[in-house]
């Protein structure tokens, strides 16, 4: 069930595009994602998300080479359909969302009050940007 707060933020999202700088996940969610990452992702992408040989880095220039300017939804869908490579599709939407929150926290994006929620198309409005956009 959506909390009133999430509903309000979703309504805000509907009106305008937000970015990964706008506090789109919670600290608790990222902590859950940390454990999931260690169990399901680190084997290929490394403990530090640096990537190893066949698996690309999930931080730094390699990550932005692939994802700068994309929506979080595109990244979420990529995870949902192709990861983890040894058992694709074996994580729930909520688990994938937690892992995504962990990745964002590792890249030093700020946590906020809203839980990153892959339902309802909300992520299609969240843009991945390396730098905080300058206020207009």
């Amino acid at each position, binding site marked *: 069930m959506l909390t009133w707060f999430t509903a309000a933020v979703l309504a805000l999202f509907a009106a305008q595009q937000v970015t990964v700088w706008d506090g789109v996940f919670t600290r608790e969610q*990222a902590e859950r994602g940390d454990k999931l990452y260690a169990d399901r992702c680190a084997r290929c992408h490394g403990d*530090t998300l640096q990537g190893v040989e*066949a698996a690309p880095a999930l931080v730094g220039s390699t990550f*932005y080479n692939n994802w700068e300017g994309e929506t979080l939804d595109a*990244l979420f869908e990529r995870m949902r359909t192709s990861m983890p490579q040894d*058992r694709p599709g074996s994580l729930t939407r909520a688990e994938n969302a937690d892992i995504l929150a962990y990745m964002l926290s*590792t*890249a*030093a994006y700020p946590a906020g009050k809203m839980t990153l929620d892959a339902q309802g198309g909300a992520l299609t409005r969240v843009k991945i940007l390396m730098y905080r956009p300058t206020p207009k």
Partner: protein
Amino acid sequence: MNNWKRRGCLAAIVVALLTAGPRGQTGAPRGEWPTYGGDLGHTRYAALDQISAANFNDLEVAWRFKTDNLGPRPEFNLQSTPLMVRGRLYSTGGTRRAVVALDAGTGELLWVHSEDEGARGAASPRQLSGRGLAYWSDGKDERILYVTPGYRLIALDARTGNPMPGFGRGGAVDLKADLDPAIDLTNAPIGLHATPIVAGNVVIVGAAFETGANPKSRRNIKGAVRGFDVRTGKRLWMFKTIPEPGEVGHETWENDSWAYTGNTGVWAQISVDEELGMAYLPVELPTHDYYGGARPGNGLFGESLVAIDYRTGERKWHYQLVHHGLWDMDIPCAPILVDIRVNGRTVKAVAQPSKQAFLYVFDRVTGQPIWPIEERPVPQGDTPGEKYSPTQPFPTRPRAYDRQGLTIDDLIDFTPQLRAEAVKAVAQYRIGPLFTPPAVSRAEGPIATLAMATQAPATNWPGGAYDPETHILYVYSQSAVATLGLVPPAEGTADGVRYHQGTVLTGARRTGGSGSATAQAGGAATAPTVQGLPLIKPPYGRINAINLDSGDILWQVPHGETPEAIRNHPALKGLNVPRTGRPGQVGTLVTRTLVIAGEPGFGPTPSGQRGSMLRAYDKRTGADAGAVYMPAPQTGSPMTYMLNGRQYLVVAISGGSYSGELVAFRLPQ
């Protein structure tokens, strides 16, 4: 000798040169592209010139082939270089590494072959579509050979895609089956992304393993290179890359470490000189990429270029590029066979690009360096249990084609403020010249060693290209900083391994230390950045042209448009930032007039559309010679061919949310 006789002799010599020239370094023949590297010497050269600087921008998409439905789900990292023979284009693709044959003029699917390997495929350390395949024909029979994710060698009829019944068992050879010591056929983690190579009637296959940064044990499967009969699949020979008692190089393994140490595989492309009867093997380092305490000694044939007789597997010569490696340098790409003119004589040579930005050049008959390679003292570390090599080999020519190690002078210098922040950022790290060893990570410093041209390689698996007409070698390289730190392994993750790669900032969370990575987000996971900008000054990626007759670097140009994130960075406002190039892994193609390579990663495009540019450079000068839009970056290396009077360029693209696709370009009619 009279004039006529002299002319006759001359004509005979010319004919002999034209027809009997050494196969392997002459470029792709007859407008086709019959092997991964264009020819067996991996020149990635085609003597075609229909596509030129005058018309490169006019290129149009001739056809596309999406690989999504070749497997149970889309794949996002298509690294193939397709082959083109007799009007058919062959490629691997999809998550199960299916093989397809396409009409090279239209992209129409002619046949597809796929193997569902179940648990065996899922256990592979080298999954997905791989780098491609090999073609063989004796004039009647035509075969496609490839290695599956589950490490089986498959032979298909190139005309139908059907497995060849007389090859192995039902068209397949189990590559896990005859290794020494024996391994589990389903779960043993061994595989291969590289393509097989066919020399004469021998198929040569290497091996790849799980990454060596955090090995579970000092004991691992040993790399071996094997030759198989292309008709029957019968194993002809096996070359063990870790020598056994009595064999050359065995003495370089102290404390009997040869017995349990593994890896030392050949996961990169192998090259062949059929005339000399030799295959050239680029060997990776032994078990553990950053800590060698369990394998004291130089450890041959780790990180060595080894020449063998491809008919027998017998070693002819070897040269170790890194002694007792601790930097994950491996040898990551194909040795390139080059016939060059040095001091007035023609030399059959082999040139090896590397992660460490040296191009090593040897006489490929004898293994002697073309220009002296000096053993020089290198920095020694203080990791408990480690036994460092006091010296390492340094080529005196060509000079390194990209930056190595890390010094203050390498740091970002767009403004004095940024430089000052960078100096502060590296203060807690160990920096130094090439071969500065990894550091045991300590909170009080060093947190790790920071270095370029190591694990974040200058050149990786795509390797280089070579123009046999001008004797110029082209190779892409990146400048990127790796964090080489060591921490004790997390409990229960390693049997007798003293260190794993990591730092106190990130490793602590797995060893019950204070706080989680979440709490320490930013800067911990990778090399430090400066306000989000790279720690080092540009260029971040470049293409290098090296004259192999003289050993001089002819030109270097940044490859890749400046990323928006740098161009629009608030700290660089008002500065005119020239093209920075971009980091990545990029394969090059050489034609009569052009060097062609796609940009790494998504980047700014002239139209503003999300995508990446396929770029051409004047091969003599490095000047821009055109660019064409692609919806995703190049992830395989470009190849070219002629069909019905028209030149085609084909590139494998993918990345981010864009799944694997082959794109063919040609000029409008």
